[in-house]
């Protein structure tokens, strides 16, 4: 496979195309952007296939390429300036009906995009992908204390941003 066999690579694309799509969508804020990111990451992975030192862990290696693509995109967006402010409808006085929950979900997704990419990454891996700190540390090569520090700063920023809907 590492010799670049195209047909075998097509199988890998089919197998892993959706595996990290949710991660990319939550990191970037939309499925469309996630699709672009996954596509770019697969093409880049093919070009760098020789650098995959552990062919049995293609998924983990591909995840790092996709993750770097997502971080680069968020840095690009951050450099371009802040996007439009999301309208947060105060819901603290209302019952938790479906509409309130949907509003809160949208507000959280918008607030996630306002975190630093590194904070958002840890939040998404832990609370969307349901990974433990140990698993996240293994994937990213980061220490657990530094991951917790990022996460706890993310909690505070989210609470500040969502104080009207929590």
């Amino acid at each position, binding site marked *: 496979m590492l010799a670049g066999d*195209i047909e075998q690579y097509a199988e890998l694309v089919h197998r892993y195309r959706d595996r990290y799509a949710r991660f*990319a969508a939550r990191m970037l804020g939309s499925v469309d952007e996630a699709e672009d990111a996954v596509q770019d990451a697969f093409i880049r992975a093919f070009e760098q296939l020789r650098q995959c030192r552990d062919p049995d862990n293609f998924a983990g290696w591909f995840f790092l390429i996709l993750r770097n693509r997502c971080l*680069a995109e968020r840095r690009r967006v951050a450099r371009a300036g802040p996007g439009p402010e999301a309208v947060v409808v105060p819901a603290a006085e209302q019952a938790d009906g479906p509409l309130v929950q949907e509003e809160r979900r949208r507000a959280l997704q918008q607030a996630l995009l306002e975190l630093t990419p590194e904070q958002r990454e840890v939040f998404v891996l832990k609370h969307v992908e349901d990974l433990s700190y140990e698993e996240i540390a293994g994937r990213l090569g980061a220490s657990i204390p530094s991951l917790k520090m990022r996460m*706890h700063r993310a909690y*505070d920023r989210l609470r500040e941003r969502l104080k009207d809907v929590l």
Partner: protein
Amino acid sequence: MTTVFHPLVKRFLDGELNLADLPPELHAEARAAERLLGAVDRAPVTLPAALDARVMSAVRRRASAPARRWWQRLAEPWEIRVRLRPWILGPALAAAAVLVLILARSQPPVPAVAVAAAPESVYVRFVLYAPGAHRVSVAGTFNQWDATTAPLAPAGAAGVWATTVALPVGQHQYAFLVDGRRWVNDPAAPMVDDGFGRRNSVVAVTAGAAGARAL
């Protein structure tokens, strides 16, 4: 109303504590934390079926590009097989020994102090002039772009921030993060394309006494 979570509530959010572990005065805060996690969108995402075709079309174009084929020929390791007949082994070894002697005589003696093990890492000082900034950090390939691990501190003159980081020998890409939101390249360092349309600063760390050097 405070807008930061109590440390115990953060541990509750991390799944390390249950609601019953928290004192009653933190229960309201913990319920707000529960509402936060309840709003997380965990719905699976399925990408359009056309993605496979687009990826493979691009892959096939790249695989068939002449430049890539030439690069592969140059970059791929070549396997060279040598078959020796026993009777030629003696003269071949003698010739090799003569060659080694000739080369050794033509080289000046090397002082012993030059044979030092290369250090595994070198201290590199990052400096940025950022007047008006409240906090500055450096993130790069050496810390997985984690902007929390290498903060810069005000250094001497107003607006100058600096830190020293131990970097392994090799080439590293990096950028400064100013006030947690603005990425700034190092004006004193060369830059490279990050592959996604942006440019990063780059530093090459060598094992020599000079430490880091520009490319």
